[in-house]
C-alpha cells in the first residue's frame, strides 16, 4: 500500500512537471544561444552582447554556446535541430544563405523561425597603402589589363568575401577568374598577407581592416553598400567609385528552429528590439566599428530569402554553386 502511494505521488508529480511549461510564462528556465563560430570572433562578441542584454530583460540566464566547425555548418545544424520550445535559439550568419548552394548542407533560411537581424557589415575593397591606385576604378582597369596577375584574399574559398570580389568583378563585366582567390582563415591572415606582399587585394569588411588602415598600411577604396560607412565616411561606395550597383555584406541575426510557438516569438522579438535599441548595444557597435541593421520577424525572413536568391545567383555565375 505504501509503495502504491509513493508511485501515485510520483506520477502526480511528473504530470505536474510535464504540464508546468504550459502554465508558467515563458521563459521559466535558462536559454541557450548557439553561435556557429569560435569564441572571441566578431560573431561571438555580438552574440555575447545580445545574450547579456536579453538576460536582463527576460530574467533568465542566456548561455552562449559555441558550436564551431565545418565553416558554420555544424552550428547552424544544431540551431535547426533544437526542440522549438524557445529554450534554444541561435545567431545565424550570412553563410546560411550560401552553404546549401555549395552542396554542404540542406539547411537554408527557411529551416528557421526568424527573430531579428541585428548587424550587417558591407564588404570593402582594400589594397596596400603604398599601392599605385587612387580609386577602385584604377584597380579594375589594372585587373582588366592583366588578368590573373593580381591575387585576392580575405576568407576561405567560396566564403562571403570571395563572393564579394567575384560579384563585384561580374557586375563590372570583368571575368571573376581575372583575380584568383587565395583562401585564408579569415580576414586577419588575409590582411597580413596583403601587407606581406603575398596578395594585392583584400575584400573584407571595414571593421576587420580598421587597425591596419589606421596604422597607415592598408587603404580602402570602396565599400560595397548603398551608403557610406559611419566608421570611415571618406571611403566612397562602389557605385560612386565605379558605377556598379553591386552591394554585399556579412550579416548576423537571431533565429530559432522552425516552428517556434507564437508566445515565444511574442516575448523574444520585443526583448531583442529593446536590446538592439539599448545604449549598451549601440555603443558596442560603434566601438567595434560594426554596422547596425534591424529587421524583425517576417521582415528578417524576407531579408534572408532575398539574400539567399541574390547570393545563389552570383555563386552560380562564378561557378561556386554545385
Amino acid at each position: 500500500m505504501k509503495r502504491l502511494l509513493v508511485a501515485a505521488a510520483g506520477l502526480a508529480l511528473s504530470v505536474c512537471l510535464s504540464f508546468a511549461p504550459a502554465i508558467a510564462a515563458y521563459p521559466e528556465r535558462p536559454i541557450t544561444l548557439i553561435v556557429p563560430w569560435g569564441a572571441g570572433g566578431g560573431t561571438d562578441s555580438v552574440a555575447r552582447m545580445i545574450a547579456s542584454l536579453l538576460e536582463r530583460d527576460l530574467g533568465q540566464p542566456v548561455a552562449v554556446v559555441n558550436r564551431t566547425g565545418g565553416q558554420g555548418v555544424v552550428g547552424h545544424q544544431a540551431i535547426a535541430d533544437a526542440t522549438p520550445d524557445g529554450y534554444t535559439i541561435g545567431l545565424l550568419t550570412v553563410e546560411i544563405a550560401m552553404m546549401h548552394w555549395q552542396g554542404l548542407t540542406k539547411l537554408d533560411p527557411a529551416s528557421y523561425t526568424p527573430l531579428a537581424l541585428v548587424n550587417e557589415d558591407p564588404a570593402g575593397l582594400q589594397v596596400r597603402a603604398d599601392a599605385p591606385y587612387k580609386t577602385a576604378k584604377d584597380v579594375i582597369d589594372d585587373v582588366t589589363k592583366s588578368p590573373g596577375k593580381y591575387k585576392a584574399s580575405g576568407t576561405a574559398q567560396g566564403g562571403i568575401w570571395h563572393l564579394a570580389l567575384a560579384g563585384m568583378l561580374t557586375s563590372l563585366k570583368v571575368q571573376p577568374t581575372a583575380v584568383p582567390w587565395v583562401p585564408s582563415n579569415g580576414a586577419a591572415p588575409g590582411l597580413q598577407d596583403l601587407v606581406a606582399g603575398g596578395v594585392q587585394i583584400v575584400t573584407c569588411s571595414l571593421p576587420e581592416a580598421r587597425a591596419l588602415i589606421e596604422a597607415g598600411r592598408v587603404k580602402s577604396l570602396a565599400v560595397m553598400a548603398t551608403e557610406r560607412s559611419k566608421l570611415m565616411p571618406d571611403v566612397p561606395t562602389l557605385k560612386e567609385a565605379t558605377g556598379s550597383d553591386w552591394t554585399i555584406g556579412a550579416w548576423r541575426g537571431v533565429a530559432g528552429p522552425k516552428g517556434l510557438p507564437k508566445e515565444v516569438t511574442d516575448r523574444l522579438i520585443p526583448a531583442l528590439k529593446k536590446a538592439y535599441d539599448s545604449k549598451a548595444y549601440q555603443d558596442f557597435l560603434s566601438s567595434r566599428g560594426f554596422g547596425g541593421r534591424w529587421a524583425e520577424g517576417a521582415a528578417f525572413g524576407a531579408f534572408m530569402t532575398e539574400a539567399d536568391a541574390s547570393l545563389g545567383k552570383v555563386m552560380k555565375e562564378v561557378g561556386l554553386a554545385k
Partner: protein
Amino acid sequence: MGAVEAGIAMVMRFDVILTILAAAAFGIVVGAIPGLTATMAIALLVPITFFMEPIPAVGAMIACSAMAIFAGDIPSTLMRMPGTPASAAYTDECYAMTRKGEAEVALGANVLFSALGGLFGTAVLIVAAPLLAEVALGFSSFEYFWLALLGLSCAIFIGTGAPLKGLLSLLLGLFFATIGLDNPAGIPRFTFGNAELLSGVDFIPAMIGLFAVSEVLRAMASGAPDWEMRQTAMRNPLKGWGRMFVTYWPQQLRGNITGTAIGILPGAGADIAAWVSYAMSRKFSKTPEKFGTGHVEGIIESTSSNNAALAGAWVPALVFGIPGDSITAIVIGVLYLKGLNPGPTLFLNNPQAIYAVFTIFILANLAMIPLGLAALKAGTALLRVPRKLMMPIILVFCIVGAYAVNNSVYGVVLMLGFGVLGFLMEEHGVPIAPCVLGIVLGKLLEEAFVTSMIKADGQLLAFFERPMAAGLGVLTLLVLCLPLLGRLRRALRSA
C-alpha cells in the same frame, strides 16, 4: 617618464590587483582541467569584461591566460593528461618524472621557468614591440610553408625508438589533419556525408585520447597497480630552483628566445613553440639519451618557451591589430570595446595604457610563483589517491573536457576512438608524440603550400624568390639533409 609612472599607478590600485588575482585563480582552475584551454578561459571572461574598466579588463585577460598555460602542466605531470594543448609536447617527459617519484621537481620547474619565460617575453614586448611587429608582418605563406616543414622535422627528434615507427605516427597525424571541410579548397574530405565530421578532427579531444585515455586503458589492463615509487616531497623550492637555474641556463634562454619568436609570428602560438623547443632541447643536449625517461632538461626549455610565446603574441596584436595567437584574437576585440584601439597610434596617444599593460604582464608572471606553488602542493596530493580510484576519475575528466570543446558528444566519441588508437600504438612501440605534432602542423603546412602555389601560379621556385623564404628554405633543407650527409660520410669512411 610621466607616462610610465601614470601607467604603473593605473595598475597599483586595490580593485585592479584584486581583479588580476581573481582572474589568475580562475586561469589556474580552467587551465588545470583538460579540454578547457587558455583560449576558452579568455572567451569565458569576455562577457564579464563588458562591465569592467579598461585596465582591470585587460589585466584579467593577461593574468588568466598566463596562469592557464602554466596550469596545463599540472594534470599533464600528474595524470598524463595535457591541461592545455601547449603542454602536449612535454607531457610524456613530465609524466615520466612522476613515475620516478619526482612529480614535485617537475612541477616546480614548470612554475619557475613558466614565470621566467613569461618575464622574458614581456621584456621583449616592452623593448622591441614596434620593431618586431614589422618583421612579423612581412611573413607570407611562403615563409610559413618552410616554418611548418621545419616544425615537422621536429618529429625526428621527439619520437623515441625506431625512426620508421615515428614516421608512421607522423603520417597518421597528417592524415587526421586532412579530414573535414576546413581545407584551402573548401572541399569536404573523408566526411561520409556526416555534418559533425565536416568540422574535422578537433585537436583537443584527439590529444586527450592519445595521451590520457590510452594511459587509463593501460592501467586498467594491468589491474591499476599503485605507484612503485614514493613521491619525494620537494624540500626547499628555492634551493632546487637555484641549481636548475645554474645548470640549465642556456636551455632556458634558448627556450625563451624561441618561444618569443614563435609567439610573435601571427601563424603560430604557444603549442607550436613548446614542440619546437622540446625538439631543439633534445637535438642540442649533451645527454639526448635521457630524454623521455623523466629528464628535466627538455621540460625547462619547452615550459619557458610556451609562456614566452604568450607575451610574444601581443607584439603584432598591439602594434597592428593582427593576432599572434588564438588568445590575442579575442583580446583585440576587447581592446576595441574598451577604446584601446590597437595600432601604432596607441603607443603615441595612450602610452600610459601601454605601460599599464606591461606592468600587468610583469605582475602576473610574478604572481605565478606563489600561486603556482600552492596549486602544485594541492595537485600532488592527488598522487596519494589509490590508482584504482584515480583512473575512473581521470576518465570522467577526459569525457567532460572532450565534451566541453564544442559542447557535443562528437568530441567524446573522437576522444574515445583516439584513446584506443593511442593504446594500440604504444603497445606496438609506435610513439604518439609525432602523431600529435602531425595533427597540429598538418593544416598549417597544407594551407601554406596550396595558397603559395595559387599566388605563384604553380611555380615551385617561388618558395625561394622572397629573401626571407629563401633563407628559411635553405635552413630547412640543411636540417633535413644533414643526417643523410653524415651517414653518407661515415659510409664512405668505413668503405
